[in-house]
């Protein structure tokens, strides 16, 4: 996933993605790697992203190999701070990678 996200009701936008992640982890999956390059997220989108990270965390606790790689432009430290705040609540591998 990449880009900005600031719809008024992010749950409408993220609902299908959250559902997909939930279904994928509940069935078939023994691993899931999530690559993110997110820019601005409004608070509604942040809440939706937290739902996704919570699903990943649950799967991780059950032994599924989940991981997140969060790419950000090193000129904007806010994007790293946003990633750090999500990472605080996760125990699975969560790499925050800066790029020129």
């Amino acid at each position, binding site marked *: 996933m990449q880009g900005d996200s*600031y*719809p*008024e*009701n*992010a*749950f*409408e936008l993220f609902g299908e993605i959250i559902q997909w992640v939930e279904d994928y982890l509940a069935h078939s999956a023994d691993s899931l790697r999530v690559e993110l390059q997110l820019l*601005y997220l*409004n*608070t*509604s989108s*942040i*809440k939706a992203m*937290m739902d996704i990270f919570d699903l990943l965390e649950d799967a991780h606790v059950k032994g599924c190999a989940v991981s997140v790689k969060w790419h950000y*432009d090193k*000129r*904007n*430290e*806010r*994007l790293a701070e946003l990633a750090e*705040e999500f990472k605080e609540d996760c125990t699975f591998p969560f790499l925050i990678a800066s790029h020129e």
Partner: protein
Amino acid sequence: MHSPDLYALRENFNRERIMLCFNGPISRSLIEEIGNALKNYLAADQALPAAALDVFAAYIEMTQNIRHYVARRGYPEVETAATVVISRDERGRYIVSAGNLVEVGDGHAVMSRINALATLDKAALKAVYKEQLRKPRDPALTGGAGLGLLDIARKASEPLQAALIEHGDDRAFFSLRAVI
């Protein structure tokens, strides 16, 4: 003198160092268009990326809060009017302000919430923010996460300032000002 007096209006904008302003019913698409203009202005102004993102975030959260409020109260379209101003203070800091009509009781409630937030330092604001983030969605919030004010308060360099102007009926004008 013509009415409206554009010259006086322009002088006022210049004096208040207003970069961008809007007054009128605010739609979803308008928020996006004005937001795009704001991004371009901030880039042209050579704002640091972090500051530009904070200003943009405060603008989005304030205007979306107004839209959520209007939806929750079921106000007709013509009453969704918002006044939005992005300016700079004498020290060059960005100021994001927005105001709208509210029910007087709602106005007092949000004023006391803002006054309570003003007593919190950044660490306490983060704790309250994280607690709110963990709360289940309230269907009455029509998609809002109840995080907007907290997010703005965390990004602001001073406590949020708010004003409530009552005009004797059931409605009052609520305005919020964030220094980034």
